[in-house]
């Protein structure tokens, strides 16, 4: 953990707020207020919080799809102003191109991005590698609508990876899957991320979820958010050993951490549920 604290941040959120203004009514919503957070190289950070607390808003700002109303978002010390291939995103609804096959979806970034495009031969090797990595071999020529939910998820994941980003942003990527598939993909995600690699060689991952178990299982640190407006309440270190396997979920350390997080957000989770009724 010492190494984690000393390193210069890969991504730095410095006092960011985001206010949405509805164009027609002029109504203002403060989605997130004064969020500061440093994420270091090779870290797996999970953000949990009740729905509507601004998790996607934060992720979109790191992706460069939205700008903060106040504060700065920086990567390697340089402010983020636009999307770029060094930050890959896996969206909750996967956003696969329906007119492209699995293969064509995965090679989309390396083929069409503005900088450092790859030639056909290199691309072929790269795409094949990632298709194998996410176990989509044999489905290369299928269209997204011919795939199961889990396969679509893996395709979206491979599309992001094949662009070889330094930072991977994932917005509730497993939320639409059934429970068994989700558990399997969590383990697979850790394997692909490279749990055994030294920290410097891992990708930095920011992973949004509302599953507390999921966050504890995956993360090095869990940022717990609160609502109205969205703030970061606590950042918890998850000092569970890696590589992590299914059996970890049954241990008392795991349960204790999960329960601690649940206690932090339960009041707000109740409020959010009752608000919406």
């Amino acid at each position, binding site marked *: 953990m010492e190494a984690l604290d000393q390193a210069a941040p890969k991504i730095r959120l410095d006092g960011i707020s985001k206010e949405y203004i509805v164009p027609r009514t002029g109504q203002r919503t403060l989605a997130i207020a004064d969020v500061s957070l440093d994420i270091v190289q090779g870290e797996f950070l999970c953000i949990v919080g009740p729905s509507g607390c601004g998790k996607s808003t934060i992720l979109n700002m790191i*992706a*460069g*799809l939205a700008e903060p109303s106040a504060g700065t978002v920086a990567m390697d010390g340089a402010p983020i102003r636009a*999307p*770029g*291939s*060094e*930050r*890959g*995103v896996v*969206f909750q*609804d996967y*956003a*696969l*191109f*329906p*007119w492209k096959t699995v293969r064509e979806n995965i090679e*989309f*970034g390396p083929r*069409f*991005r*503005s*900088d450092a495009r790859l030639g056909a031969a290199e691309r072929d090797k790269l795409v094949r590698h990632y298709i194998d990595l996410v176990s989509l071999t044999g489905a290369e020529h299928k*269209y*997204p*609508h011919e795939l199961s939910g889990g396969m679509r998820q893996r395709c979206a994941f491979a*599309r*992001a990876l094949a*662009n070889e980003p330094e930072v991977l942003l994932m917005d509730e990527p497993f939320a639409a899957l059934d429970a068994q598939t989700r558990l399997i993909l969590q383990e697979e995600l850790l394997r692909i991320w490279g749990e055994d690699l030294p920290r410097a060689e891992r990708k930095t991952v920011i992973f949004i979820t509302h599953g507390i178990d999921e966050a504890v299982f995956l993360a090095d640190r869990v940022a717990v958010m609160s609502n109205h407006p969205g703030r970061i309440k606590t950042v918890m270190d998850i000092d569970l050993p890696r590589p992590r396997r299914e059996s970890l979920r049954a241990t008392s350390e795991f349960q204790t951490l999960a329960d601690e997080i649940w206690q932090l957000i339960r009041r707000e989770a109740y409020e959010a549920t009752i608000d919406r009724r």
Partner: protein
Amino acid sequence: MTARDENGAAVAPGGATPYWPTPLAARIYASIGGLFVYVRAMAVFLVIWHLVSLWIGNPILLPSPIAAAEALVDLTRQGEVFSNVVASLTRLGTSFALAILLGVPLGFAMGLSRNVFAMVDPLIELLRPISGIAWIPLGMFILGVGEALPTAIMFYGAFFPIVINTVVGVRSVNPGLVQAARVLGVGRAHIVRHVIWPAALPNILVGARLGAGAGWMAMVAAELIGAPSGLGFAVEWYRELLMTPSVLAFVFLIGLLGYLFDRLLRWLQRVLTPWAQTQGGAL
């Protein structure tokens, strides 16, 4: 126990139904069934037509379907059908190609840029409700009787559905797909070419089908008075000669060719946008 049985059946559905027809056989049965429904509907229609023609008893007002069919065979044999069909189809081809070549880029520009839309849309909304037929008298002054008039009127009919559906197609592209391309570091030009264009294509093809239909309908009106050849011209020609069976033969051809052209475009939809078909997108 039951749950396990259900589970087993769900996992391996192939083994449970060995006598289920193969996809090919199923398709043949389905198309024979479809043909039967079609023939039955046509037979009812022809019988009623025949009875009504007997009741009216005047072959100039309404000849029997047999007389009309004979006329069609005669006209085909004499080759007269072909020159008119070629004339009309050439005009359809020219006007439709022009409407696509101008309408799709314009619709794209309007869909992508608010400024272009604000500039062009009022004009389009003003012209669109005016039927192409309303322009025929003026067109005869300016263009005279010949190729130009029916082609221009057909273009007018085809143009607006194509533009409007292209605008709708470009505007209704899922923003999530554009974002997905942006976060991969893909630039604007490639996004337009590889995301917005394919995403808008199903709507553009719907516009093309509507445009072709509108153009084909406008054609008959334009050829009735403004052309020296073509299917509409032939209808009017035989009307003046009081040869009603031939009139009906050409009317039938207008319907048949319009239908076939639409089938062609539908086939194009299936080939060009297979993903939209399976999602039940296009008509």
